[in-house]
């Protein structure tokens, strides 16, 4: 009914207050998700992607300082009144949390757990309509409806993940945020779960934001990918292109970490970055990726690069794109 973009995050900054000073988790991120679109957010530990996901439903911890806008269907989640926020939570947007294996309450049956958000939003629902809804949801994620009477420990990892997805769909949301939905799963089960997720988008026009460190999974499923590093966006563009022809050195490294089976160039040439993902409290001056970047130069240490448009429909935050590679030794890295 509304023509506004489903989700528009504008210049989001999130900082946690810790005993050792403020910890900047997200440092100026823009992101949009349209209806029927799947947007992937790629990054590793400490890049801020989970924090980003939590802000969509204003679930960030109370100690966090937030600035910027998170517009859901045109309304800013951060400044919504409580009643409006409650309506958005689960019925407007929902989250499939990371670590499904531990997110289910072991003492309640699956059916009861799926029914919970239904009852929270509409306490007047009758027993029959709840049961019908649960059956429909389980069917949609490819589970036998009889499973509603099982306890979590009776299900396998893949089945539990599907229950989490069913829970996320309970109130018919328009946006689903999936945080590392297939990380602990076998590759075959992963394929099944990805099939469920893409089916959702196709059939119901749900918008999806999918978070993962696995760039190949995102390239498989998503329309567009945003790559994050140290709290900022370093590359953004169509999914296939970002994976197969990245322009930012970090996206390049992330893509190379998932070698293509069958590619002769990938035989016996594992590619990785030295050092470790940065501690958000100890970011270096200038580009935060410079200490590990294979293409770092003097100019990189002066200022944090700004996200600019390169090529057609691609954005990257790197000043070295298009510059010739100097013939020099790589910079001394903290190993």
């Amino acid at each position, binding site marked *: 009914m509304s023509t506004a973009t489903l989700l528009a995050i504008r210049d989001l900054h999130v900082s946690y207050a810790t005993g050792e000073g403020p910890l900047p988790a997200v440092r100026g991120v823009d992101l949009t998700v349209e209806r029927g679109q799947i947007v992937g957010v790629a990054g*590793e*530990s400490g890049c801020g992607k989970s924090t980003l996901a939590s802000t969509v439903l204003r679930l960030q911890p109370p100690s966090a300082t937030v600035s910027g806008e998170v517009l859901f269907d045109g309304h800013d989640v951060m400044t919504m009144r409580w009643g409006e926020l409650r309506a958005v939570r689960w019925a407007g947007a929902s989250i499939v949390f990371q670590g499904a294996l531990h997110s289910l309450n072991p003492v309640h049956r699956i059916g009861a757990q799926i029914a919970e958000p239904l009852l929270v939003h509409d306490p007047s629902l009758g027993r029959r309509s709840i049961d019908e809804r649960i059956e429909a949801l389980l069917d949609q994620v490819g589970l036998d409806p009889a499973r509603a009477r099982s306890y979590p420990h009776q299900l*396998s*990892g*893949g*089945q539990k993940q599907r229950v989490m997805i069913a829970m996320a769909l309970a109130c018919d949301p328009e946006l689903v945020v999936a945080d590392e939905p297939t990380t602990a799963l*076998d*590759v*075959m*089960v*992963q*394929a*099944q779960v*990805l*099939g469920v997720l893409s089916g959702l988008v196709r059939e119901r026009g749900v918008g999806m934001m999918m978070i993962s*460190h*696995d*760039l*190949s*999974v995102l*390239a*498989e*499923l998503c329309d567009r990918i945003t790559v994050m590093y140290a709290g900022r966006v370093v590359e953004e563009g169509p999914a296939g292109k970002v*994976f197969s022809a990245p322009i930012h050195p*970090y996206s390049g*490294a*992330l893509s*190379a*970490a*998932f*070698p*293509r*089976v*069958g*590619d002769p160039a*990938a*035989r*016996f*040439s*594992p*590619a*990785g*970055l*030295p*050092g*470790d*993902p940065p501690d958000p409290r100890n970011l270096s001056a200038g580009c935060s990726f410079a200490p*590990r970047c294979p293409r770092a130069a003097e100019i990189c240490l002066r200022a944090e690069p700004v996200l600019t448009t390169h090529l057609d429909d691609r954005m990257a935050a790197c000043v070295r794109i298009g510059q010739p590679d100097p013939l020099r030794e790589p910079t001394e890295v903290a*190993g």
Partner: protein
Amino acid sequence: MTPPQRSAELVASGLRVEFTTRAGRVAKALDGADLVVRAGEVVALVGESGSGKTTLARSLVGLTKPAAGEVTWDGKPMNRSARGLKSLRRQVQLVLQDPSGALNPRQTVYESVAEGLRVHKLVARSGKTEDELVAAALSSAGLRPPEGLFLRYPHELSGGQRQRVLIAGALAVQPQLLIADEPVSSLDASIRGEILALLLRLREELGLGVLVVTHDLGLAWNIADRIAVMYLGRVVESGPTEEVLTSPQHPYTQALLSVVPEMERLEPIVLRGEIPDPTRIPRGCRFHPRCPALASGEADEVADACRRTSLPILPSDPDGHRCACHLVASRARADAADEVSA
């Protein structure tokens, strides 16, 4: 044919490992597995959870006692006495999964690495001091300068560093074979390459053999000379990595390969259901309930065999490309018959 060389070989033949579940049923974690790993080569043991790959790795160093079958090292069967196991473990080292749990939180890096040296009393024999040997091991694992890490505790290190410390601990006893169980799955994606490059370097520079247990086919493509694919306790296909991953013969391998993300070459075959309960292994070919070839009718000529006749254990042929499948076997027979008659 290369003349048979006496290089150190770790061979598993017909291993069976069973355990009783709480419900009283017998679960077969390994149901007749064969494998050969030689010094100087990298073998990837690939499978999903429940395939038995970790159990096989643990049986190879004697951490799990098999109910049947045997493990041979350097031509001699595994001696399960305390002294025999100790001597085996000096030469075949297992690097465990989960670097954060595998290091004693109360021990410094130095002590964790020196432990192997002390247990096997290697310092006296080597002519060097203990800290020289520890420093050498840490350097081989890529941690430089090694002295800077001597006194650190595991919680002060990053995931990648902990993994390297574990590898250094294994290298300190100068083994001939390294078994790495999921060496990079808990590490951040961008640093995985470094650890994998380290394993390759160890093969180049020290002539180590490496058995990598993983669920990641991309990893196998990246560093393995040979690959063995496991399903429900048995090896179903094995051979040189390039051959197996570019022209897989077993329907399971084909399906697995087809669903690797961004695998453009193959049409995705998403198997239905999940790996069956190891207490109820299907009769006949253990894969037949989920086999797409059987379901599509492609395997009609051997359908009966698939459902009733169990397959022999795949012989551990160190160099060839073998596959445990009735369809593949019957096609091979047909080809051979054609060749004869042609």
